[in-house]
């Protein structure tokens, strides 16, 4: 399947069939997930209604990290296997990951004010998350700044692969340092420390965000493939005129 989709025309054909299924599925899962999150889930016994910010903050944060790892893996595959769509996939994922990071930071600040009494502190978790945003912006800036796509892919790949070291730092920052941010309550030894009434909607919301990522990635990657064809045609036209 992986090699089958290496052909850009074949990818456009297969993704053309996948999108009309994926997009409505994403919308349906989103509606159901946020019905569970806003209507069905009970308020927290300590945090009250503010706990509902978690249903946006946690999926956005998890996807922000996941998308960056996806980009690093895509670039490694691009370097090792020379898969023609690997670099394009990483490039297409970057703006989506950046927006998820911004949502994570803003909703985190809005959750922090009523819970901690402040919107922002430069603790290890929040600072490392902010660095992730800078990495996303730097990565996208490289693609914009370098004209030659192969050279841009190489430099952007180095940014993605070196920057992925920040992901475990974000994940374990709450254990390695004394932070205002609470320790992990979902992925931790001994299982999730969340009541099932809140955990179930949270998992649905995470699924909805993951589907949204897949849908937007597919649209962006299709555009990226067409953009490469456009560039090839523009170069060919310039070549035939010269």
């Amino acid at each position, binding site marked *: 399947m992986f090699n089958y989709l290496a052909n850009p025309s074949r990818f456009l054909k297969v993704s053309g069939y996948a999108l009309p299924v994926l997009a409505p599925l994403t919308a349906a899962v989103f509606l159901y997930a946020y019905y569970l999150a806003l209507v069905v889930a009970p308020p927290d016994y300590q945090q009250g209604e503010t706990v*509902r910010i978690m249903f*946006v903050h946690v999926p956005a944060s998890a996807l922000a990290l996941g998308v960056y790892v996806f980009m690093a893996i895509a670039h490694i595959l691009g370097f090792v296997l020379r898969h023609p769509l690997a670099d394009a996939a990483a490039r297409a994922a970057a703006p989506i990951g950046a*927006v998820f990071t911004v949502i994570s930071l803003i*909703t985190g600040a809005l*959750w922090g004010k009523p819970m901690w009494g402040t919107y922002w502190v430069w603790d290890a978790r929040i600072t490392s998350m902010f660095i992730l945003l800078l990495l996303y912006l730097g990565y996208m800036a490289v693609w914009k700044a370098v004209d030659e796509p192969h050279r841009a892919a190489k430099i952007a790949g180095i940014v993605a692969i070196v920057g992925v070291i920040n992901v475990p730092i974000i994940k374990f920052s709450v254990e390695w340092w004394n932070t205002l941010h609470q320790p992990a309550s979902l992925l931790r030894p001994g299982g999730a420390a969340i009541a099932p009434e809140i955990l179930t909607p949270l998992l649905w919301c995470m699924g909805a965000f993951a589907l949204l990522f897949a849908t*937007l990635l597919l649209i962006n990657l299709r555009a990226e493939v067409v953009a490469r*064809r456009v560039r*090839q045609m523009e170069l*060919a036209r310039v070549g035939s005129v010269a």
Partner: protein
Amino acid sequence: MDVHAKHVEFVFTAYGVAALLLVVLLVYVLVRARLIRNRLRMLEREGAPRRRRPSAAPVKAEDELPA
């Protein structure tokens, strides 16, 4: 959800900002895809070649095989 609960304005703001950012992202992705597709159609209409034709430039001396 109790809309009169304490600190509920933070919940509304968080959901509002997240929804706004996701809509902006969706519009950006869709508009970008459409602009690129339109550019491709325009090039096809103008009859632009798909690939660069092989150059007719003479072979350089250093590229020639030794006799």
